[in-house]
């Protein structure tokens, strides 16, 4: 159905805060829907669900146990406008961890339950590769509503029962035929995803070291990746109060696996890059058949300070493994 920008804006604002990407690419609550760029913003939408720094509890320094104040999950209803399919699909992966009994994260759940995801179809850029994972820039499977921008508004489709219920409350514009979803972009050199078992079998291959010499483990790829979800727990003090925090962490840090006694199984930089690639392309698919720990958003390619193309590297690894397997066969 067609829907004007004003109508949509009014309907969303009525629900509560509307989160949109700011000019700097960060998620901000606004009153007016902005013009969006063609592709995903710099910060992935996961920031609204697994924020970089989230309080678990706080207490006054030196206080007894009765003073522990757990942080309350934020159940404010609202919406997120401008979610791209790559970021939305990534949330499905995060759901597998944080909505999994018996350790459901109540803060994550509260946001997932209360924030309506309003997707906006994109104009894929040169570093996007969502097509590799079987979806495209119009994909509505992971959002509540998918909007396709038009001259005077949007064409809206529902992606979920919740989205359908929302659209039913909005002044219905004319029903319009919906174009077939476009296929997602794939790199021209790509021929297929690596086999998770083959990757695992080649854990000790010397090519990991070669890959590692030109990666400096700065962790920017991890920092901006929509599916990366590692975190740590730590305490910070400020003006007599102590906060226990859940802090988003980065497996590329040199001390990520360092134990208190000093032993660090991943001291060598190349081993940390290997861990990231293996986790995304081998371990996650092994534990979740049909899923990969990547949605092709291309941020790692855009932001790598050394201009590396991490997905191209993964592809080259796969090619090498396949070539060697063929030689043996």
């Amino acid at each position, binding site marked *: 159905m067609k829907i004007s920008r004003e109508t949509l804006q009014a309907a969303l604002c009525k629900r509560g805060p509307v989160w949109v990407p700011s000019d700097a690419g960060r998620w901000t609550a606004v009153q007016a829907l902005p013009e969006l760029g063609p592709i995903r913003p710099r910060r992935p939408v996961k920031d609204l669900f697994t924020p970089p720094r989230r309080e678990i509890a706080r207490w006054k320094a030196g206080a007894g146990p009765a003073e522990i104040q757990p942080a309350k999950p934020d159940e404010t209803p609202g919406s997120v406008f401008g979610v791209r399919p790559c970021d939305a699909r990534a949330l499905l992966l995060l759901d597998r961890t944080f909505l999994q009994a018996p*350790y459901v994260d109540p803060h994550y759940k509260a946001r997932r339950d209360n924030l309506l995801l309003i997707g906006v179809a994109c104009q894929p850029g040169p570093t996007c590769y969502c097509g590799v994972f079987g979806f495209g820039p119009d994909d509505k499977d992971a959002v509540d509503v998918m909007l396709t921008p038009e001259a005077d508004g949007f064409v809206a489709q529902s992606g979920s029962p919740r989205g359908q219920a929302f659209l039913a409350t909005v002044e219905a514009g004319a029903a319009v035929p919906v174009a077939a979803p476009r296929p997602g972009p794939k790199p021209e050199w790509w021929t297929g995803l690596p086999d998770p078992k083959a990757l695992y079998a080649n854990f000790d291959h010397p090519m990991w070291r070669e890959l590692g010499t030109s990666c400096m483990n700065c962790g920017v790829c991890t920092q901006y990746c929509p599916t990366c979800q*590692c975190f740590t727990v730590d*305490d910070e003090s400020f003006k007599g109060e*102590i906060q226990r925090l859940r802090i988003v962490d980065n*497996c590329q840090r040199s001390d990520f696996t360092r134990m208190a006694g000093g032993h660090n199984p991943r001291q060598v930089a190349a081993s940390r890059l290997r*861990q990231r690639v293996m986790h995304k392309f*081998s371990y996650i698919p092994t534990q979740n058949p049909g899923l990969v720990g990547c949605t092709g958003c291309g941020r790692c390619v855009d932001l790598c300070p050394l201009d590396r193309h991490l997905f191209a590297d993964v592809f080259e690894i796969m090619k090498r493994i396949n070539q060697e397997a063929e030689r043996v066969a």
Partner: protein
Amino acid sequence: MLRDPLLPLPARISERIDETADTVTFHFELLDEAERKAFRYLPGQFGEISAFGEGESTFVIAGDPAKPERLTVTTKRVGAHTEALHHLYAGAVIGFRGPYGKAFPVAEWKGKDIVIAGGGIGLAPLKPIICHVLNQRADYGKLTIVYGARSPNDLMYAADREIWAKALNTELVVTVDKGDANWKGREGFVPAVLRATAPKAENAVAITCGPPIMIKLTLPVFKELGFPAERIFTTLEMKMKCGLGQCGRCNIGPYYVCKDGPVFSVAQLQQLPQEF
């Protein structure tokens, strides 16, 4: 309302034992009566302990699982958080989350002989197994414990060892790498003493824990004695943070050490990438 699994439960330290110059055992109880009475754990499971203000650390629950209201951890001073813990005494309140992890399969071991080789603070995760076996004495065969430390001053759990030495169908062999003027006991590294003790592998399981170098040299001895990889167990030491299988820190291969371990058989360990 859902409880945040990262929220610590307050607990009060009831007793502190300075085992060695840098190792302290704390006994503590959960403050909330209902939680305290409902708490259960199995040998090998661990908790996240915090000295409030300094973050959390992972420690195995080194107590007697038959008396779960009293929790125990044995901590070595190695960094900022353990330093903070070692400033605490009976009466202090700490945070606790747990129990986490896969336990030693003690039910599957019924009817078997139990052979334990521990070194230094590695005795901590093994103590709950010993307590369990001695509590259910009729369910298990012979219990052999080979325990060693660098020096007599580094030996832990003196009071418990006195009990074990006199227990039914139990052989306790204590050794030190190097004795002192007063040491009248055995001298020798744990792997060598284990070999000399020569426990039977038939219908027996082996469990070992200790410094990495000790484990590395002890596993071949167990193999020599005839223990197959499926019947040798250990706890994998990998940095763990959340204990929930969520934070990613202990991910190795397709597993999380906090969820799929930390107890692993050697056969299972051989399937993992040999990163650790």
